[in-house]
């Protein structure tokens, strides 16, 4: 019997579709929600029904607690899956879902409250005997003397922060006063809470996280780690499992620390404990997230465990079976994020309509996409278009598979980061797995002159297409739509 008969997904894009797919497999009727900007979005078309929840601005739709809950009640949903981002870590939302008599697919509101406070989470980890990044465990006063003890450079972070916001690097004692004022102001405006703390800036480091799954019966499964060291401004771009940097001893130490942190938290859902690993293989607790991660698919590929399915089942009270408790990791998986961002222009977001959308397929390839051809990108939302994942017997085969998959990928209309990812798979430090969080700054850099050979190839293609369109017996239609001349060639071929 399905754990629920109807479930509402309080999200959009690829993650809404990801949850819809598991709902289908479990026999649950998925209900989606949409803002006015998403009336024609892919996730809306894939659900059994969709409810309008407000105007395009997230604050008035995907973050509007009352509108989301009203939608769930109207449609008779029994549970709400929040996906990631938006309301997924909002204790007020979790409380409101329960108050409406529905099941929140996630931890109890009190857990979200305690872990949402990064300072409280640091104290919790420390109390559990887990090393934390050196720094303060109480809110910073205006006195900067305590920072001298931590050492420079250091990071000022917002206690209520996340996603890289409210963070500020400080290189010398002279800069502390100004940085403190700025960080407080930023934190206050972004999160309504100006509490900041300090951590030493560790570099070079790797960013490694441990996937956990808990049930309501006290069982806790540790489902391996993911290496998320390839990131830019604290936004992850590539994740892989297992981490190429650690041996079984370090892995076991990370798992042990993750278990200790989780032991102090009531969460009965999917959760991730994030660590930094320095060059001496010391690890430091960074934070714990009690929601589905963007990069969860990497773990699903190597363990064969459907994390979304188990999130839903444990929310309905089912215990984790031994098959999940003792799931082992097989082979190697890598995920790359296809973003509508321009890597040749400081990764600025690109806008527009997707004109062509050809995703890779074949052995060991998984694509979780939120868009398709003719999708208009909505500037209000995250520029993540799709996650391309590969799975193979070992890392070297996975890298080869990823290269092949990227070469099959064709996206038209907007500049994406695909070119950066294609460069990455041939980069020596990526191929050997010996990279750290500085890879993009150190090796990708700022200036990207067009290689002469690519210009010469582009000339061939453009001249060939112009020639083909002009030799057509049918006059190209007078249209400003990009690619119209191409449609003409298609017609000409069809006439043959």
């Amino acid at each position, binding site marked *: 019997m399905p754990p629920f008969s109807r479930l509402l997904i309080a999200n959009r894009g690829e993650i809404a579709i990801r949850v819809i797919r598991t709902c289908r497999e479990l026999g649950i009727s998925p209900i989606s929600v949409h803002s006015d900007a998403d009336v024609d979005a892919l996730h809306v078309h894939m659900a059994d029904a969709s409810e309008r929840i407000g105007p395009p601005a997230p604050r008035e739709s995907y973050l509007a607690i009352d509108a989301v809950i009203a939608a769930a009640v109207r449609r008779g949903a029994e549970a709400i899956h929040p996906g990631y981002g938006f309301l997924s870590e909002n204790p007020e939302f979790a409380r409101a879902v329960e108050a409406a008599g529905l099941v929140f697919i996630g931890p109890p509101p009190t857990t979200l409250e305690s872990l949402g406070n990064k300072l409280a989470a640091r104290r919790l980890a420390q109390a559990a005997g887990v090393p934390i990044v050196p720094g303060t465990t109480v809110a910073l006063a205006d006195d900067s003397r305590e920072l001298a003890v931590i050492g420079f450079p250091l990071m000022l972070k917002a206690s209520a922060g996340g996603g890289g916001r409210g963070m500020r690097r400080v290189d010398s004692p002279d800069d502390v006063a100004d940085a403190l004022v700025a960080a407080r102001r930023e934190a206050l405006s972004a999160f309504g809470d100006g509490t900041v703390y300090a951590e030493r800036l560790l570099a070079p480091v790797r960013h490694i996280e441990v996937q956990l799954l808990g049930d309501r019966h006290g069982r806790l499964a540790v489902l391996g780690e993911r290496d998320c060291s390839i990131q830019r401004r604290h936004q992850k771009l590539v994740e892989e499992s297992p981490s190429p940097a650690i041996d079984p001893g370090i892995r076991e130490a990370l798992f042990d620390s993750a278990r200790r942190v989780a032991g102090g938290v009531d969460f009965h859902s999917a959760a991730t404990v994030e660590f930094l690993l320095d060059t001496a293989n010391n690890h430091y607790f960074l934070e714990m997230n009690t929601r589905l991660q963007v990069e969860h698919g990497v773990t699903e590929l190597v363990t064969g465990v459907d994390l979304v399915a188990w999130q839903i089942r444990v929310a309905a009270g089912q215990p984790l079976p031994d098959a999940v408790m003792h799931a082992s990791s097989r082979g190697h998986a890598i995920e790359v994020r296809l973003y509508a961002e321009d890597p*040749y222009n400081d990764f600025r977001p690109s806008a527009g309509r997707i*004109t*062509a959308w*050809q995703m890779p397929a074949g052995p060991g390839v998984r694509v979780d996409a939120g868009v398709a*051809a003719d999708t208009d990108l909505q500037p209000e939302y995250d520029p993540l278009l799709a996650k391309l994942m590969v799975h193979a017997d070992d890392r070297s085969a996975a890298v080869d598979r990823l290269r092949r998959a*990227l*070469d*099959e*990928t*064709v*996206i*038209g*209309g907007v*500049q*994406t*980061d*695909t*070119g*950066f*990812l*294609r460069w990455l798979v041939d980069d020596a430090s990526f191929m050997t797995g010996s990279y750290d969080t500085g890879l993009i700054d150190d090796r990708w850099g700022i200036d990207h002159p*067009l290689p002469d*050979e*690519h*210009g*010469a*190839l*582009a*000339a*061939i*293609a*453009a*001249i*060939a*297409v*112009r*020639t*083909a*369109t002009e030799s057509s017996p049918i006059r*190209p239609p007078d249209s400003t739509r*990009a*690619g*119209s*001349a*191409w*449609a003409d*060639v*298609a017609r000409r*071929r069809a006439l043959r």
Partner: protein
Amino acid sequence: MSDLEARIDGEAVTPAKGWRFEIIDPARGIGRLINGAASMPALVEGKASDWVVTIRGRRIPVTVRSWREQVLAGAETAATARAGPAAVRATLPGLILTVAVSAGDTVDEGATLLTIEAMKMQNDVRAPRSGRVIEVSVQAGETVTTGTPLVRLE
């Protein structure tokens, strides 16, 4: 192959030797660059002289012009440089066929101002930049020589 010339960022580009482009999906612009045993996918979007070619995930704007378009574009650039930003002058001798604007009109960059018949072909004279038209110095039927002031932009 043809008299078509490709430019990237204003620089003429020599097409890669030995390579050809095979069309796979004309409606979407998807094709494959092939050279013997080597090949890679490419996407071509656009029309007339303005194209964007995506190779290895990078969008590359390519201007493809015929010999005639090259002459006109070169002359237009030269005229703009000579006359300063405010005046649009004839870049070649010919007959004014049509005048599309009059004093007081606001035009966008690239908008057609008038048409000149030259070398037995109709050629659009386009606004070098956006602005208001303060004077139109010619009318349809008039013959102009190279350098004749045609339109003044504010």
